[in-house]
Structures are given as structure tokens and as C-alpha cells.
């Protein structure tokens, strides 16, 4: 980095007296806060690399003196990590793809197609953004029960397909595209489907990425719905499996539970690294996290 200027600029500015200590104090304060924020995660990773017997040691050694994967073998012995991971992956991937499809199509219709009841329908979609899942969970459970979908992965997946927020986001996204592209195609004789398929859909990828990444982040970590819907262990997702693992092991082998936590975090961390931009855009764009 050849960037030396920011700090020297600060000391050259008018308010020299006030800022001479400013930048460094600020950076140190932020570093302390960052450490506090990441501390629990660092502790989790380092403790998962210790033997179950050593995991109580205080002070906690951030760098384990004798790192071991014993806890990781332990967690595979205790719970069927592969099954949990498979369930979580299936549920999350299908929901993410499903939401990209439903939100992409509906968002396009609201942005670019003319039809009756467009306004009230869009109003309905927006209004449901306000409705918390926790309030409707009892009837949702009963609807799924009547369809025979409780205690199935499908019961977790299908209700999550429609996304009011994703629809809203994709509508904004399509509205931001120049209208004359479609008009030009129309003059060339393209029908409404062709205009969507060949002109606008190919431009929608960044918007769809936001919908997909948000869906992944939310549903990979989801706990409330799986807890209610999935009663038999074979349908558990990772968060559910880990909470019941802690229940079973108590405080007996911390490192085994933490090894499970680390494993379940990996895909979320991967998405955080690869998809940080769409993730940030998604979270800030409408301020809705759920």
C-alpha cells in the first residue's frame, strides 16, 4: 500500500491540535471493538482444536499448544453430521433458487408488465413484508399439516419460496433498467416473453445474486421453523442438530460441540467472503434482515 496520506493529511488539517492524536486513538478503539466482536468466534475455533479434557482450561489459549482434531472426530461420532449438512444444504439451496425464480418473475411483472389489479396486488405483497413469521406460525403449521408436509424437508422449503422482500427488491432492480431496451425490441417484433428472456433477464443477475445470498444466509441459519416443523432427527438441519447435541452432552465436552459449530459456520463464512457485496447491499437496501 502506497497510501501514506490519510494520517499525514489529518495532522496538516486546520484543527491540528484536536486531531494530532485522533486517527491513532480511533484506530486503536476500533481494533479493540473488532477484537471483542470476533473474540467469541476465535475462541470457538481455537477451543474446537483442543481435546475435550483441555477445553475447560483457563486462561483460554488462543493458539492451542497441541492442536488436535479429536473433537471433530467426536462430533462425527455423536451426530450424523453428513445427514444434517445434507438436509441444511438441500433446504437452503432449494429455497435460494426458488426465491430467485419467484422474486425474479414477480418483480419483472410488477416493474415492466401492464395488467389489471397491479397496484392492489403489489400493495398486498408489500403489506405481507410487515407480517412476522412468528405471528402466523400456528396457522402455517396447520396448513402444512393438512398438506401432510409437517416433519418433511418439503414443508420447510415450499412456504419459503414466495418472498415479499425479494419481489420488492427485484421490482426496483428491473425499474432501474432503461425502458428503451424493451421498446426497441418490441419495435423489432419481439413479444413480451422474448423481451423478458432476451433483453431484461440477462441483466438481472446482480439483483438475483442479492436475493440468493440473503436467502442462503437466512435459511442456513434458520432455527424457529425447523424446530417446530421437524420432529424426527432424520429431518434435522444443522442448527437444530447442534442445539440438541449441546442438550445431550451438557457441558461435558465443549470442544466437540464447538467443532460442530465451526463445521456449520463454514458455508456461511464462505458466502460472507465470496458474496459480501451482495450481502451488504441486500441488508442495507431495504433494511430488512429477515
Amino acid at each position: 500500500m502506497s497510501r501514506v496520506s490519510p494520517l499525514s493529511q489529518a495532522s496538516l488539517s486546520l484543527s491540528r491540535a484536536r486531531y494530532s492524536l485522533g486517527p491513532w486513538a480511533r484506530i486503536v478503539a476500533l481494533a479493540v471493538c473488532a477484537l471483542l466482536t470476533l473474540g467469541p468466534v476465535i475462541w470457538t475455533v481455537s477451543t474446537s482444536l483442543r481435546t475435550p479434557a483441555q477445553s475447560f482450561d483457563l486462561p483460554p489459549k488462543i493458539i492451542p499448544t497441541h492442536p488436535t482434531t479429536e473433537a471433530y472426530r467426536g462430533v462425527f461420532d455423536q451426530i450424523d453430521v453428513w445427514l444434517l449438512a445434507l438436509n441444511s444444504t438441500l433446504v437452503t439451496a432449494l429455497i435460494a433458487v426458488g426465491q430467485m425464480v419467484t422474486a425474479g418473475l414477480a418483480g419483472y411483472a410488477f416493474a415492466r408488465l401492464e395488467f389489471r389489479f397491479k397496484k392492489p396486488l403489489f400493495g398486498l405483497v408489500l403489506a405481507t413484508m410487515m407480517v412476522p413469521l412468528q405471528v402466523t406460525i400456528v396457522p402455517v403449521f396447520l396448513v402444512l399439516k393438512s398438506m401432510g408436509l409437517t416433519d418433511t424437508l418439503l414443508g420447510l422449503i415450499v412456504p419459503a419460496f414466495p418472498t415479499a422482500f425479494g419481489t420488492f427488491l427485484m421490482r426496483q432492480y428491473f425499474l432501474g433498467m432503461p425502458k428503451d431496451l424493451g421498446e426497441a425490441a418490441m419495435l423489432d417484433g419481439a413479444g413480451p416473453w422474448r423481451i423478458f428472456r432476451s433483453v431484461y433477464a440477462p441483466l438481472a443477475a446482480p439483483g438475483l445474486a442479492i436475493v440468493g445470498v440473503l436467502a442462503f444466509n437466512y435459511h442456513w441459519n434458520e432455527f424457529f421453523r425447523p424446530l417446530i416443523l421437524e420432529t424426527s432427527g432424520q429431518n434435522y438441519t444443522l442448527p437444530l442438530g447442534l442445539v440438541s447435541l449441546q442438550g445431550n452432552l451438557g457441558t461435558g465436552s465443549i470442544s466437540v460441540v464447538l467443532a460442530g459449530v465451526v463445521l456449520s459456520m463454514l458455508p456461511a463464512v464462505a458466502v460472507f467472503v465470496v458474496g459480501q457485496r451482495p450481502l451488504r447491499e441486500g441488508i442495507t437496501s431495504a433494511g430488512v434482515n429477515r
Partner: protein
Amino acid sequence: MTNTQTVSPARPLTRPVAAPRPSRRDRGTRLLATLFLAPTVVGIVVFTVVPIVGSVVLSLFHWNVIDSPSFAGTANYREVFTDSTVRVSFLNTLVFMVFAVAAQLLIALSLALTLNGRMPTWLRSVFRSAFFFPLVLSAASISVVMKYLFNQDFGVVNWLIGLVGISPVPWLTSEHAALATVIIVYVWQQFGFSFLLFIGGLNNIPKEVHEAASLDGATGLRKHLHVTLPLLSPTLLVATVVGVINALQVFEQPYVLTNGGPGDSTRTVVMVIYETAFEQLRFGEASAVGVLLFVLIMAVTALQFRLSRRFVHYQ
């Protein structure tokens, strides 16, 4: 989204050409619209609209799934209002909301303002990533971790405060401390959300405003108080409204950390909904609590928008 290109003087000349189209195209458009909207609209009706109505209807019935439902009138609501656990859970949730949202906003705002100062770009993005990292983790798994960290006997937190001579705190096992611990764990994970909103809001404030304020001699806290905060107030409103809505629905943290205890000291409204419906199979009462929570959320949100008219400045 960019709307720089939408309006230009040349555009109206081309518009009328597109207006009168043969009706075959219109029918095609309508068919396409129907197909495109069907999954979302049907899904939203089946899984949100019907359940909302269903919640209200169910709340007027006694039902345990096994026997057929019997009409209860307002009995469920009367029962729920007098039930001490339900009342405590609403009180807990409100206390939780006030402190969690206040802490979350305060931490996020301080960090965002501090980060907005001069520093190398790479360092800024490192800090930004660190602060919003907890947001991508599972609240349930993180609570599993926190349960160990806040353990009274071998937890790292008590060891840390022991270093400065504070005696061990029963973080999760005392009625007085447990709710505070749940708030700490929740805020630790959630502040990154408000933080991201504030970062976005600060980026939208034109640089010239800061420069003008600095030239006028405003510095540090005064500049923030009189220049930055008013300009940031729309973002503050969004962060508060969404923060409150999310906080009123808190579930994972108290469920995993304390399971509502000790006593009922950390039992939240959503925990009560869960227990009443899915452990005790009292669907009518659970729906009544759900409807009350919904009304509470709407009321608090409406109140905030109302109050905001006096505090929020749009540019």
C-alpha cells in the same frame, strides 16, 4: 438504483409510438403477467394472508388438534390477559426491546461515525467486515457458544472480569442477570445490522456538507450532533423501526441460553407462543398471544413513524 436516465427531454417523442398496440400483444402480456405472478401471489396468500386471518379466527376457539375446535369467544384473550406467564413475557419482551435496540443503535452509530474518519481504505474494510461478521452466523449456534462463555464456573467471561478483580457473576442462572445476558448476546450479533445501515447513510451525506461545517468551525461531537445526525435521521428511523420489529420477535437467544428461566425471567412472547402451541397444544391461546404480539408490533411501529415527524429531516 440509478434513475439518472429515466427522464430526458427527447424521450416523449418516442413514447406515443409504443402506445397503441394490437390486442394480441396485450393478451400475451396479461398471460405472462399471470404466470409470472402466480407462484408469489398464491404462495403469499396460502402462507401469509390465510394464516393471518386464521390466527384471528383460531384465537376465538379452543383447540388442541385432537378434539374438534369449540367456540370460545373472547375467553382466550381474557385467559391470556390474566395469565401471569404471558404478562411477564410481554414485560420481558418490552424491556428487552428497549435496552437491546438502544444498545444496538448506540454501538452501531459510534462505530460507524468512528469508522467514517480518516484511515486507510483497506483498514476500513477490515473493520467493516469484522463488525458485520456475527450477522452471518446462526443465532442458535452462537447462543450455544455463548452459553459456554457465560458459564458461571468455567466461562471465559467470568475469568476475564476476574482479572480486574470482579467476582464471578451468575450470568445465566440469576433472575437479575439473565435478561441482561440475553440482551448482550443479542446485541453482539445484531449491532452489525444497524452498523451497515449507518455506514450506508453516512456515505449518502455529501462531502461538501462536512467540509462546510468544518470551515464554519464545527468539530468532533458538535459537528456530529448538529450536522451529521440530522442528515442521518432518516437512516436512524429505519434502523430503529426494523430493530424494534426484530427485537419484539426475539426467540433463539433466550430459548438456547436460558430456556426462559430462571423462573420466567427471560421468557419472551415468541417463546410463550411456541410453548403454548407446540408443547401444550393450546392452539387457540397461542393464536391469541400471536395476535396480541402483532397488534403490539403494529402499534409500536405506527407510534415511531408518528414521533419521527418531529425528529426526522429529509433533505
